[in-house]
């Protein structure tokens, strides 16, 4: 058999397994995909890169038959693919793993995988064979999972494995993965990449949709870049660099913001042995101590769920410490509330823009004064000064380059990046002494993320201290002066960013103390 497969593999490398020619899709006046021609070779990982709204998901939806293209053709393994039929796409060997999973929560892994592949009158009759096949596929690609477990008991990473197995079970030879790493922790990403390697070694072909440059550089063989619906670049990864990819994505050179290190000033924030418990008595923060000086960025690393949320709540004024002392600008904070923290000059950029950061149905001008509407600048005799609100919004929209917004725009209609700019404008214009930035660039594209970073650096240069909580280690190392790691509610001592590297931080995030790291193999 191996001998027989050899020539087929060579042939596949010659004839693309998937060929898109001139695919065009319009939504009203918007051209989501403009005459895109793209080949996928057998056994390669093609990264499809682009900013939010560049047309990546639309293109893949056409491929998988969710949308019908206005123009153009698609051929899989040399045969034309009928338009608008997911069934035909599956039959042709195309499998898709969506960004948002489509699994039945109260069904077992096996049931989810088999669902829809067996005739209705013979449900479950073949489960022995099915189980064997699933186990075989899981073993071959390192997708470890117990087929009997219920989906609702699985972690996000495990659910993703089920989605991939589902596609493989249906005989997929071309796998489309839509932003697969967005939901994974750094550790999970590593094993996920190993799975991808195993799959291409087995002859599968993969389209990997992403907007994260590091991952694309790490895993892809070839990269195609979409910008505003058009294919603007298509080259082997060996010829690509972070800078060239970023430039292709946004259409202009993106300077990743650098900042000159400056001498740290006075202490602006001090936590001394702060502990926090939830209402059930479970410890959320365990004797956390930290010191933040004016003009510096302190990065907080950690796998999500190790106390980042409680630390952010504490500094936002949403939770009061159960033990320990919290000092802002040398004053001990005894009465904790969001308003009290704001009054003491803490600016807060929350983790979830939509749920916590803005009021979606409010206009931009209203959201821009959400924390200061009661101030005499904006309020007199209990009534808001409409003209002052509008002037304030006009200034901030201009200063912070909030695109697609005028003062009356409904905030919900803004893009993620511009919504984040609204929050930053609101926070930074008050000249806070301490800034809590919780995942400030999550979900933003390269250009918007760079803007956010630049704004935080500028605030820093004006004497604010920044606490940066992020799960993106690259970003932490790039932005911070010092880094500390949260693990199970305990915060490590901070270290200068020059002394930290990805490996050390990764080990500390997994619970190894900094002392042990040196000895680790």
């Amino acid at each position, binding site marked *: 058999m191996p001998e027989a497969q050899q020539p087929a593999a060579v042939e596949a490398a010659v004839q693309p397994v998937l060929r898109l020619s001139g695919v065009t899709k319009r939504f009203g006046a918007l051209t989501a995909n403009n005459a895109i021609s793209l080949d996928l070779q057998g056994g390669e990982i093609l990264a499809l890169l682009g900013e939010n709204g560049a047309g990546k998901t639309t293109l893949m939806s056409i491929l998988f038959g969710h949308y019908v293209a206005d123009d153009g053709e698609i051929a899989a393994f040399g045969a034309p693919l009928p338009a608008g039929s997911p069934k035909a796409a599956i039959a042709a060997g195309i499998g898709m793993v969506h960004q948002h999973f489509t699994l039945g929560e109260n069904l077992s892994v096996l049931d989810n995988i088999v669902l829809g592949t067996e005739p209705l009158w013979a449900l479950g009759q073949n489960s022995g064979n099915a189980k064997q096949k699933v186990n075989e596929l899981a073993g071959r690609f390192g997708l470890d999972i117990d087929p009997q477990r219920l989906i609702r008991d699985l972690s996000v990473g495990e659910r993703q494995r089920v989605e991939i197995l589902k596609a493989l079970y249906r005989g997929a030879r071309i796998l489309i993965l839509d932003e697969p790493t967005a939901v994974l922790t750094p550790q999970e990403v590593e094993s996920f990449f190993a799975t991808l390697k195993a799959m291409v070694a087995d002859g599968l072909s993969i389209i990997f949709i992403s907007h994260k440059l590091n991952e694309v550089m790490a895993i892809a063989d070839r990269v195609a870049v979409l910008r505003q619906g058009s294919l603007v670049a298509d080259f082997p990864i060996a010829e690509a660099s972070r800078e060239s990819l970023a430039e292709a994505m946004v259409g202009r050179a993106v300077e990743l913001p650098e900042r000159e290190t400056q001498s740290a000033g006075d202490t602006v924030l001090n936590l001394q042995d702060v502990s926090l418990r939830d209402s059930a008595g479970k410890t959320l923060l365990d004797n956390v101590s930290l010191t933040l000086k004016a003009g510096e960025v302190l990065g907080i690393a950690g796998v999500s769920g190790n106390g980042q949320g409680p630390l952010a709540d504490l500094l936002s004024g949403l939770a009061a410490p159960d033990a320990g002392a919290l000092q802002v600008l040398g004053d001990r904070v005894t009465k904790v509330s969001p308003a009290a923290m704001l009054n003491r000059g803490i600016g807060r950029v*929350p983790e979830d823009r939509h749920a916590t950061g803005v009021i979606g149905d409010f206009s931009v001008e209203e959201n821009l004064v959400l924390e200061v509407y009661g101030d005499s600048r904006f309020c007199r005799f209990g009534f*808001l000064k409409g003209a002052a609100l509008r002037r304030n919004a006009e200034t901030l929209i201009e200063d912070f380059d909030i695109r697609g917004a005028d003062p*009356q*725009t409904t905030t919900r209609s803004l893009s993620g990046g511009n919504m984040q700019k609204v929050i930053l404008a609101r926070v930074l214009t008050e000249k806070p002494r301490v800034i809590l930035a919780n995942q400030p660039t999550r979900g933003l594209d390269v250009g918007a993320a760079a803007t956010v970073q630049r704004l935080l650096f500028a605030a820093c240069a004006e004497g604010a201290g920044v606490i940066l909580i992020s799960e993106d280690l690259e970003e932490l190392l790039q932005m911070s002066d010092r880094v500390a790691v949260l693990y199970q509610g305990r915060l490590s001592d901070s270290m200068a960013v020059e002394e930290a590297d990805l490996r050390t931080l990764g080990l500390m995030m997994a619970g190894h103390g900094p002392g042990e790291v040196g000895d680790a193999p």
Partner: protein
Amino acid sequence: MRLEPRSHVPLWLNFAAPLSAIALAFLLCALLIAWAGAPVLAAYGALLNGAFGSVFALSETLTRAAPLIFTGLAAAVAFRAKLWNIGGEGQLYAGALAATYVGTGLVELPPFLMIPFLFLVGALAGGLLLLLPVILKLKLRVDEVVTTLLLNFVVLLFANYLLFGPWKDPLAMGWPQAAPIIDEGVLSPLIARTRLHSGLIWAVFFAVCAWAFIRYSKWGFEIRAVGNNPTAAGFAGIPLGATVLRTALLSGGLAGMAGVCELAGLKGYLTLDLSPGFGYTGIAVAMLAGLHPLGVIASAIFIAAIYNGADAMSRAMSISNYLADVMTATALLLVLASVLFVRYQPRLR
């Protein structure tokens, strides 16, 4: 078809969407009228005539609209803050009870003071009544839908007790009614030989006040913020508890004023049939108006017209006047659906 959020809502759409929904509701209800065996056009003609066809018909419609404006405002203000006040009926009676207590001789003021004083007392009673379930909600997380609803019956039975017992007017020939409000407190009639009284003017006045308050005041800003996204509002330092309490006082107060309006405008004395469910209908009025205080004026008149007109239609065509309930319900459902098209732009893919 796909729906995209609109960044700006054109003003005309705010009117066009509910009006077309109402037109569609009439079309659908035409089927019912035809089914009931009446000529559709003639039946609608009778309805229109009964609602607006004469000075008398118009005055009756507006008389009925006045308390609905108050209870509609009460629901609109509360629902804006996601405070589900279903107790408008109880607050209405609480307002009427308080106004009866002070207005039947206890306090005597000249009319230009007496009438505002009665409204104030009624508003206080309604507002304080709503405070009770709201404090339970804030402190113990008791669901206010249940408590406000059940309080309606408590208040009504209390009024029952008073009217059959200590407050029973000895001059009322044995009827369960209280002593009349003193002359200085009676709302003056607007049109001679009709029941229309100046309560309508007060209702419109308070609707404009409520609109300005919600739209432009600091506390109104807080109410809208808490109603739209309590998490973000709390994060931004807006006091959640205080805002809900203020909303309760305002909402209960408006419902209480509905009681004063009916008491001092129509009969002049408290009876147990003071309100045919104005407190409950106010919820429909508010929803129909999209919780907009000025829209409440229009939707209260609309609903009052449907009920008045349906009575006339049912007499003329001998079909059931329950059609009025069906019509308002259909209109309400379709208007709620039309809100989708105000907030989102439909696009064909």
